[in-house]
């Protein structure tokens, strides 16, 4: 990211509005908002991003109503609705 003025945009994270830098991934936005664990495994253990490049699906979240979206492969967008632990 350039160090100069970074545009921010609002997203909805689990129902709350937060402002995040434009141009970052959803995974980054969630981590900036303090959410490192994005889902619970089938046995209930917390999981966060692993591969960072769309392969492992550990960072999957619900974005604008679509389940199983990979947070590492999507950039934030204005008013994007994100639900973790889907």
């Amino acid at each position, binding site marked *: *990211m*350039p160090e100069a003025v970074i545009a921010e945009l609002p997203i909805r994270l689990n129902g709350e509005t937060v402002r995040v*830098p434009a*141009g*970052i*991934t959803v*995974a*980054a*936005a969630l*981590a*900036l908002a303090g959410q*490192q*664990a994005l889902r619970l*495994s*089938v*046995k209930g*253990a*917390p*999981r*966060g*991003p*692993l*591969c*960072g*490049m*769309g*392969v*492992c*699906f*550990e960072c*999957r979240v619900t974005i604008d109503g*679509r389940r*199983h979206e990979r947070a*590492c*492969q*999507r*950039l934030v967008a204005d008013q994007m609705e994100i639900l973790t632990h889907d």
Partner: protein
Amino acid sequence: MTEARFELIVLGAGPAGLAAAKAAADSGREVLVLDDNPLPGGQIWRGGPDQAPNARARAAFSALQHPRIAYRPGARLFAAPGPGTLLVELPEGGCRLGYGQLILATGARERFLPFPGWTLPGVFGLGGLQALAKGGYPVAGKRIVLAGTGPLLLAVADTLKARGARVLLLAEQAPLGRVARFAAGLVRHPAKLAQAVALKSRLLGIPYRCSSHVLEASGRERLERLRLSWGGEEGFIDCDYLGCAFGLLPNTETGQLLGCTLAAGAVAVDDYQQTSRPGVYAAGEACGIGGVDKAQIEGRIAGLAAAGRPEEARRLFPARAHARDFADRLAEAFRLEPALLRLARPDTLICRCEDVPLQALQSCSSWREAKLLTRCGMGACQGRTCGPMAETLLGFEPRGSRPPLQPVSLETLVSALSPTDPR
């Protein structure tokens, strides 16, 4: 579902895909480049043109301005129902794409090996953490240990340090002797040598230990502490993040879906980068791990060959041989130490999607049996992560690949069905 047809489709917008598209478009072909990532550049130039690290990357990205190249990011290929046809999910919905020729530039992913605690949040891939950081993932002020093998350790440390991370340790699994021989051999690849020297000088002060690897990660709900082996001794380090992976694996799923023959875990190609399927080419990491030089040259060869200019492609053969020599040296120097395959305990998870531990797999005799009895490899990643581990640790035969290659919405699937498709 919308439909379109292109003379040439390139799958992947990394160094190989961009080079292939440019070579073909310069030869008059109309090219569509599809990429799963949100921005072009593959993993090495992840972040797109705005984050291009050097002139070489900027030159590569210029392909996307070519009048005969169309580019679609966020495209997920999920099926190939017949010759010359791909089904792709784009952000706006499903799409049926026809092609005359196809170039697979699907890149690589990281090889993971299981160790106790590797599923904790805060444990990332090595290139994975770099990729996340390039996407804005917060690393400033974080205490980070990087573990794995090869030059990627240095490159990732460089990226993270530049973003304000506190890199505590680089743990290289290979012994010092092999790393030193590799470094000495770089005199045959002076550009690589210069790169390595510059990189090392930027990382002064960060300990680089050979014969070192993580034994266990621990923490409540997230990574807090690592137990490591360095040069035969054991020790603990408190940290926030671990970036850990053990080299790269070619992404072959698309090639397999199309019926391309594999060799040594990569898509097999001839001198002109053509696969066993006529009109289907492959370039870059998908047909053998070798880095950016090899990827760009193979991409150019594939693009020229697909565009019917074999003589020009042939002129690039010596450069490709040189790049492949570097790849061979890398593979030899950073081959995995056997101790790495013995880190998992019986209850250590192998399949993270379905929470399948090692002990559940040890009673299975094949990958198929493991899938049927334990659901290993049946989750969202479809065995991309656990499959190679099961192969390395348990000797299970490599996996096939079947549609849908990636999870797609039901809406897309339904709209993709056509009475002419073989079911």
